[in-house]
């Protein structure tokens, strides 16, 4: 099994190298511009006002919170899916309880308007 992941590690490392290669090439061969306007932030040709880095709405955070909860839920489903067939009916009911509790969570988020983009 470690061998598997050794392969994956080589894939990731060599891949990172291959993706970086074009960046090295352009660093070597691409022409340099000394025209200061080219290095301005591109906002439709209008001079930039202020920073883009400003405060954002809380709704992005809310959505990612609900997402994390469901992502964790799905993680629990993977091992169950692998063994459910061999464990039989009991596994089905156990998972149903788990899912129902989480669907309650989704329903609550829905009711409270956490899923509205307002």
């Amino acid at each position, binding site marked *: *099994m470690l*061998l*598997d992941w*050794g*392969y*994956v590690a*080589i*894939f990731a490392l*060599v*891949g*990172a190298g*291959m*993706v*970086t290669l*074009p*960046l090295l*090439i*352009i660093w070597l*061969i*691409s*022409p*340099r*511009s000394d025209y200061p306007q*080219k*290095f*301005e*932030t*591109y*906002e439709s040709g209008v001079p930039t006002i202020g920073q*883009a*880095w400003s405060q*954002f709405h809380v709704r*992005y955070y809310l*959505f*990612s919170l*609900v*997402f994390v909860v*469901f*992502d964790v839920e*799905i993680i629990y*489903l*993977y091992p169950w*899916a*692998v*063994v*459910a*067939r*061999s*464990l*039989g009916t009991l596994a*089905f009911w156990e*998972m*149903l309880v788990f*899912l129902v509790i989480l*669907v309650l969570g*989704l329903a609550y988020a*829905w009711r409270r308007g956490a*899923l*509205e*983009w307002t």
Partner: protein
Amino acid sequence: MDWLWDVLRALVGTIIIFSAVAFIAVMFGVLLERKISAWMQSRLGPKHVGPQGLLQTVADTIKLLQKENIVPNRADRLIFASAVVVVPLAALLDYVVIPFGVTRSGPLIFRDLNIGVLYFAATSSLVVIGILMAGWGSNNKYALLGGLRSAAQMVTYEIPIGLALVTVALMAGSLSTVTIVNGQARLWYIVAQPVAFLIFLIAAIAEVNRVPFDLVEAESELVAGYFSEYSGMRFALFQLGEYGEMFAMAAMAVTLFLGGWRGPVLPPVLWFVIKLYALIFVFMWVRWTYPRFRIDQMLNFSWKILIPVSVLNLVVTAFFVVVAHR
């Protein structure tokens, strides 16, 4: 010297997969997209470079290589530069677990991991980080808005993808992609799981930010979204990431639902490629047919339709597989 042999095999495999994705998937994919969109709109599309315009994207790549190397003054240089590596690398890591075909000595796959589909979900979730880094690092209002929207969209549609993966894993009783393909020897899972297939396909389109879910790079309001500030080869690398991810999603859909390499008469690899390009055609067909969603519609669609339906589908599947089957 066994380990040296393994290292060599891994190296060769990596180089083959990266080149294949760059040339066959991305370069040819972009050309295909332009040709298909032209065909759907009664135009000709690229026609001058090479026979029937076949070398158009090659010429484009050479052009992009010679472009000026521009990093905006106000950008955060470190984050700006590393985002370009993260996005394509995360997309290409998906290909480790995709079985392309079968030979006499075993399935043609980079590595058949025990946690195959979970690995796929994990690596494709890394793309979000790259996109957020690109959007924030550019210090451009359009780019940051695009990056945030994109992240919200991609995480939202990761849930239905995950649920579809679990449903298939339940059918096959394994997370390994090769076992999943072998489980479809008698019947492709698309027949037993049409709902999961549709959910996966829709969520995959959203996951790769294509029309009708392309509001993250909506040209009319956000210039090009999170990669507005990226030009030249950096732009090409984002294209590599985007098309690489699209082909990975399609290849995964083939593996999970369309029987992978399985098919009569023709060699397995050819079957895989045929099914892959059929799905890619569907992606492009959708792109040139539908208008764009609004962001609230897009999020509602996932949370209020796709996720409840996929949970229900999972429960029904579980009932048939686990309870009724015995």
